[in-house]
């Protein structure tokens, strides 16, 4: 125990080790925070949720803090839900079965760029009859300077989603609503631009101020009701941005930490300990046992680890725990055996081992109680240095598209980004966020590992 304390005190003498330990502590903190804040099932739902979970996030948006470094403020997403009490909803009885429902959404728009998409999600309620008479809505847009632009009118199907940007009828008549003094190219005649245009501007700029969307609906069934959600998709989102499925990258960035730490730690522990025990057994028994172990190690060196993992991932299962088991299994007879063997050969000759043998200690007692503990100081630095290499192994597999099918990991984000052509499309945040996290993790563990190596192997320290 005092030795452990001494080691820690010595570690503090290396600045790189202190930085490394801070990084590791930070990662552990993130991992714990992630697991508590977003429990496993919630994380899976948020990451693999499919339709409905990510509807209100903008697609492929960089993080919101981009705005801090840019003078032109890019828009953030504005979500208004009538069911939540946003906007104003007025219900007027027309007859026994018919109602007039008016939903008025007003919002401030103070950005220097146009939104990326405009969508209205309708949630009409109908009585549970065979084919209810559908309600009817018409939408009107009112700009801050008081211009009124009629959008469209239609019947409400049970799950109606009105994409303004894809409404061809609207796009065709948009040219009438371009304010005076503004010239637009034909391909610029899109709703998310024209509806926000400020008049008398050389370059198209959004008009800042209070916009209003009025939804006038009429229902034709007694129990019918209308609720709507208006989303003006921004160009930035959250702390981490979103990917091509509109997923919030934050979920995966947070959850990547516990997954990476668990995988790296378990794999490093599993491989070093098994390798060491096998080396100890081989050196102690010597002869045929040692020979067999040596030969297996040599065969194992020629076994291609990553290709075998790839093969298993493609043919059977790509669960992260199967991969973990396989990595440990294939590394039991790793090249580390040769290093440990050299040390054990020395230990085997020491006099305290001879003493143990003299009092009649069993083979296993000598191996596990007298030999193995002696090598642990040498083992710890190697283990710490191995952790990042396994973290990166997981990332490598994920990069090849063989990541765990359910868990969100850093490697999988990089893979998604690569498949989505993020580097070519200049969506650098998508690659850089997970990459920097991986890099920091790697550096943290290696810095501590190298410092430990110098502490435990004094011969290195002189150099």
């Amino acid at each position, binding site marked *: 125990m005092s030795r452990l304390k001494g080691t820690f005190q010595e570690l503090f003498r290396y600045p*790189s080790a202190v930085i490394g330990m801070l990084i590791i502590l930070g990662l552990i903190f993130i991992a714990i925070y992630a697991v508590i804040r977003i429990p496993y099932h919630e994380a899976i739902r948020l990451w693999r949720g499919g339709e409905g979970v990510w509807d209100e996030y903008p697609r492929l948006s960089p993080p919101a803090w981009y705005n801090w470094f840019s003078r032109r403020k890019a828009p953030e997403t504005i979500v208004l839900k009538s069911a939540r009490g946003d906007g104003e909803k007025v219900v007027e009885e027309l007859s026994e079965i018919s109602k007039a429902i008016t939903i008025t959404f007003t919002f401030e728009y103070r950005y220097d760029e146009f939104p990326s998409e405009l969508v209205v999600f309708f949630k009409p309620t109908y009585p549970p009859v065979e084919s209810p008479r559908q309600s009817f809505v018409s939408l009107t847009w009112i700009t801050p300077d008081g211009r009124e632009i009629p959008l469209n009118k239609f019947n409400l199907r049970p799950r109606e989603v009105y994409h303004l940007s894809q409404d061809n009828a609207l796009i065709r008549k948009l040219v009438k609503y371009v304010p005076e003094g503004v010239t637009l190219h034909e391909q610029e005649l899109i709703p998310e631009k024209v509806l926000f245009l400020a008049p008398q501007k050389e370059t198209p700029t959004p008009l800042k101020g209070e916009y209003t969307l009025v939804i006038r609906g009429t229902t034709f069934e007694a129990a019918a009701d209308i609720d709507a959600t208006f989303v003006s998709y921004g160009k930035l989102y959250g702390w981490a941005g979103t990917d091509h499925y509109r997923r919030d990258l934050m979920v995966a960035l947070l959850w990547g930490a516990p997954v990476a730490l668990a995988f790296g730690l378990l794999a490093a522990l599993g491989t070093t300990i098994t390798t060491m025990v096998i080396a100890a057994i081989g050196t102690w028994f010597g002869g045929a046992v040692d020979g067999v172990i040596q030969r297996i190690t040599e065969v194992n060196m*020629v*076994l291609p680890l990553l290709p*075998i993992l790839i093969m298993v991932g*493609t043919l059977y299962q790509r669960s992260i725990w199967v991969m973990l088991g396989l990595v440990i299994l294939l590394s039991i007879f790793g090249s580390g055996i040769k290093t440990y063997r050299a040390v054990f050969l020395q230990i085997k000759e020491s006099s305290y081992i001879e003493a143990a043998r003299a009092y009649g200690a069993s083979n296993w007692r000598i191996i596990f109680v007298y030999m193995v503990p002696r090598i642990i100081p040498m083992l710890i630095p190697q283990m710490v240095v191995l952790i990042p290499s396994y973290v*990166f192994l997981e990332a490598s597999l994920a990069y090849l*598209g063989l990541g765990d099918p359910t868990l969100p990991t850093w490697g999988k984000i990089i893979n998604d980004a690569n498949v989505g052509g993020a*580097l070519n499309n200049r969506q650098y945040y998508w690659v850089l966020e997970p990459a920097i996290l991986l890099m920091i993790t790697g550096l943290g563990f290696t810095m501590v590992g190298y410092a430990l190596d110098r502490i435990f192997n004094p011969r290195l320290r002189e150099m």
Partner: protein
Amino acid sequence: MSSASSVAVGEQPLTRVKARSPWLETLRRISLYTVVRVIFLFITVVISVYLTILIANMGGYVDKMQEGEIAERVAMRIMADPVMRQLPVEKRNQIMEEMVQVERKRLGLDTPFFVRSLLYLRNALTLNLGHSQKMTSDSGSRQVRLILLERLPSTLVLFATSNLLLFFMSVFIALMLSRTYGSFFDRLIIALSPTSAAPGWFYGIFLILIFAGLLGILPFGGMVDAPPPPTPLEYALSLLKHLILPVSALLISTGAVSIYNWRTFFLIYSSEDYVEMAKAKGLPSRMIERRYILRPTMPTIVTSFALTLLNLWGGAIILETVFNWPGLGRLYYQAIGLVDTPVIVAETVIYAYLLAITVFMLDFVYALIDPRVKVGEGAKQ
């Protein structure tokens, strides 16, 4: 390797003075050693390929591949036969079924798995790797062997360039640093050594981002420009331009740490008594380095280099994928995407071979530079 041979040349006059036989002795020693190593490595390859086959066939995938191939071949033969085509469907199906059974028997698919696995082993070892399911070689062939052979040169170009560069660069810089121990660059290398935490492909992403994405001065990936330049010189230049990023990615990830390791190693050896003695005699430092430091450390350097190389083969798969390098690694990636099982299994076998060849080459170099290596001891070390 030139440094190794130059060391050997430097030592030659000393030995030749005594008699001519040591030269022949060396030759005999090395050839005997080589033969033993080849036999041993072949056994190793056989075992590792056999393990690959066992893993691949755990769910009967290789069997399925074979059956699929038989069915396809039989169907092709029947469709190509005008007499068969005129037969009624039932009759034709019956004949087809019979032919499939005969073929199954011929290939031994009705035998127990153990016998069959030996059969697969023979096929794999003789590189009789079957036909792919979806992928084709550039010449249009579906033979897995041709697909792989077509990709092999590009992989070797990238791998050989980067590793030779890594080796010589590290040894020379490490020697230089061990001379100026404690200098700024020495400390810099120590500070940079944790960069080895990340594999080469990972730095590749950053390099692409900076040099291809932001600056636009180097290509995003690929091996040569498209269309390929007509003259050999332009071709070589274009190849060089495409090599810069992947090679530097690898150097960034492994360079600093290998310089650091070797520097430490040289420092340890240069504090030996015989080095002090040589210094006291007033020998020039170049000679001390060559004869007294490099010579005894070379075997260890080669061993550690061998281990690095073995690890790098795995990393090369992804490095190629990141840089769109048309080699075996990217082929792997494409095969995974298409779930082309024969190609994936064959690639695993090829990688086992490549690893074994790497081990062998390094063993050979090891025998050349270390006079202590004899067959008996060589096998043990």
